[in-house]
């Protein structure tokens, strides 16, 4: 009665396809861009893209955990701005040691993530509303700290965060790698990950089993704050400046990467490898459009359509290989 006995390799392959069908979408996308634009196929370009996606990548992994609990974090874009302003204030204005300043800035964003988590878990507020509001508050904080000005970040320690290379590999790629591995382990191989799935899958069932949903939710928003903070440091290093108006709309790219990567908005379903592919799909969309030189007014349309098509193709493959 259990499974017609066809658990052959074929079935396994099909299950994998169902799970990571988005990989096919990714390859397909790369193929198309590669055909249209030879310079896409160069090694430097791939390094470029991998470097470029690091910021969105870090945010996306935090976002993935949040979405998997059934929530959303719209404040990440503002966190980028705040972190850069904190860095600007501490390093450029106060002359603080850059490493120390980075640690403080990331702690600040983690703490704000914690506050998001508390409001959502303890006060039972909707994640959308809490983080929509905290987005405003955080950006306001950034404006106050920076005095509405842009502050240059000339410390070489900071700029090295983005520009250094290890054996020819830019640092941001290393961060992305570390973040991927960490997120993978957390979500798929720890108790916390299990609880994240459980809370997102059916909160009541999780509570009935004794899972502390307050703690789980607070933790994921903290992680999201932390990841956004780290992304903010990379962003500040990349642009060498601190200002309160950066990072607007970055949450949408992160959300898109998660959803393309198979993260369910209903909660309870996600894979980190999937999200990684989502991150690269988003990266290749931007990169590809600019390389191919799609006429400017058609760029937003192209992006929108590719996202919808990617999700549709993924769903189609999942259904076929269920």
């Amino acid at each position, binding site marked *: 009665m*259990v*499974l017609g006995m066809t658990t052959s390799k074929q079935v396994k392959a099909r299950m994998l396809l169902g799970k990571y069908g988005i990989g096919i979408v990714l390859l397909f996308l790369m193929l198309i861009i590669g055909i249209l634009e030879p310079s896409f196929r160069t090694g430097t370009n791939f390094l470029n893209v991998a470097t470029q996606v690091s910021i969105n990548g870090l945010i996306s992994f935090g976002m993935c955990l949040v979405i998997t609990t059934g929530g959303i974090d719209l404040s990440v874009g503002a966190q980028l701005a705040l972190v850069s302003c904190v860095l600007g204030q501490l390093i450029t204005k106060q002359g603080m040691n850059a490493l120390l300043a980075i640690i403080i800035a990331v702690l600040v964003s983690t703490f704000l993530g914690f506050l998001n988590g508390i409001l959502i878990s303890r006060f039972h507020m909707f994640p959308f509303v809490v983080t929509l509001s905290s987005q405003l508050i955080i950006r306001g904080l950034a404006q106050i700290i920076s005095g509405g000005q842009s502050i240059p970040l000339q410390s070489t320690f900071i700029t090295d965060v983005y520009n250094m290379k290890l054996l020819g590999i830019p640092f941001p790629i290393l961060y992305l790698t570390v973040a991927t591995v960490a997120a993978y382990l957390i979500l798929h191989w*720890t108790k916390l990950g*299990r609880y994240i799935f*459980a809370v997102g*899958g059916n909160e*009541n069932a999780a509570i009935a*089993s*004794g899972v502390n949903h307050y703690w789980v939710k607070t933790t994921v928003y903290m992680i999201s704050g932390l990841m956004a903070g780290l992304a903010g440091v990379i962003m500040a290093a990349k642009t060498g400046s601190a200002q309160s108006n950066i990072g607007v709309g970055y949450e949408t790219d992160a959300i898109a990467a998660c959803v393309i990567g198979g993260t369910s908005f209903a909660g309870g379903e996600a894979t980190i490898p999937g999200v990684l592919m989502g991150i690269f799909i988003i990266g290749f969309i931007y990169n590809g459009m600019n390389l191919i030189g799609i006429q400017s007014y058609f760029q937003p349309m192209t992006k929108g359509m590719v996202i919808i098509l990617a999700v549709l193709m993924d769903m189609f493959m999942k259904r076929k290989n269920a």
Partner: protein
Amino acid sequence: MSEQDKNLIFECSGVYKAFGGTQALQDVQLQVKPGSVHALLGENGAGKSTLMKCIIGMYKIDRGTMLYNGEPYMARSTSEALGKGISMIYQELNIEPFLSIADSIFLHREFVSGIFLSKKKQNEEAQRILDDFGFNKKATTLMGELTIAQCQMVEIIKAVSYQANIIIMDEPTSSLDNTETERLFKVIRELRAKGVAIIYISHRMEEIFEVCDEVSIFRDGRYVGYYEIGDVTQDQLISLMVGRSVESVFPKVDCPIGDEAIRVENLSGKGFSDISFSVRKGEIVGLTGLVGSGRSESMKALFGLDPLASGTIYLEGEEVKIPSPRAAIELGIGMVNEDRKNYGLCLHRSVLENISLPNLRASQPKLFLNKKREAKEGGDIAKMVTVKCRSLEDTVYSLSGGNQQKVVVGKWIMSQPKVLILDEPTRGVDVGAKAELHALMSKFAAEGMAIIMISSELPEIMGMSDRVLVYCEGKLIGEIMRADILSGKITQEDILQKEFGA
């Protein structure tokens, strides 16, 4: 009772609990001995589940004392209660659809090495437990792929696997068939022998007498009495619960059977194949079979909720297509789904809205709603199926399980369909209300309605059906006439035999 006191594993007294304006518990008490099965009886809405949830730490009591092993006890969360050796099977299933059976059983008790999960060990252990139970599924199956009954079994297995001192079972058998119920009873007896205390809630009276040692009774949130099981009769218990005596739980009235109302030929789909039968006006046809035998699946497909692979449906002699429940309703078919939480109710909407939902198209022909008419019609129905609520504006969520079930039945009775499909219609409904619902079924049948009833409770099937169809592994394998049951030619055992395909 003073000498017994030392012997109690759990005790509570003077317990109060209110939800907003509703006083759910009022000065109730309960004494549970180790190594005994303690039945908790009471009408729908008597407060049984509420007290249990207070014990497991889901709710906090407003007032009162609780003692566990003689010590003051109070659980602020379920994990605290679980940690102290109390586990619970909930009346409402809470399923983690995307977790495997193994993950679900060991949720919050994961096997780890270091900080990482050891999934292999956990799966092996889970498989061992499942096999011990004789539960025929792989531990890596996702919960979302199981039927309700299978989920219920997993919940039972899980609650037992905590090796708790007290196991609370809130209507564990409401969706189980006889075989599985027996399997559960075997486990209960083993546990009892090991000294585990079990608090057992059920509306199936014969079960109380089969496995329980003692019984406490609640009525309207108050404690009414305690008895050793040997000291009371079923009728006594019922009148204590309901506050009156119930003449017959199965008030089946024979009525003239009319023309054919519905006929299906060679229905096939996921989980069933080649199903053919017909039901006539005024007839009540019971569908029986083991859990997973395809009764529900075939009826869901008939109702348009699931796709039908092949087969034809004739309504009053004419062939019809039923691609969606909407089409079914327009043709005059109604269906009470066994899964009330998923397919029955909008939990956070009011009783009235839930009752009128499938009937709006028929009873509200104007552009704007006639709310007066709606309230009148809905109120009548609520009264008819004896829903207990403060007002029709109450959210269904705030009703007790049994009362929620009555709302589901009510919403389908309102439109008085030509063909009414009832899938476990009295699931979790107390004896008194069950009798009322059965009386309604008889009444509607007498008025010419054709009724198809699925039930895992054999007495209900035998007591109410004009004809019984037996399912086995997705196929119809037999038919039993009421006359044969009444004459004693066919007994419960015979039907059980048939269900196994013998």
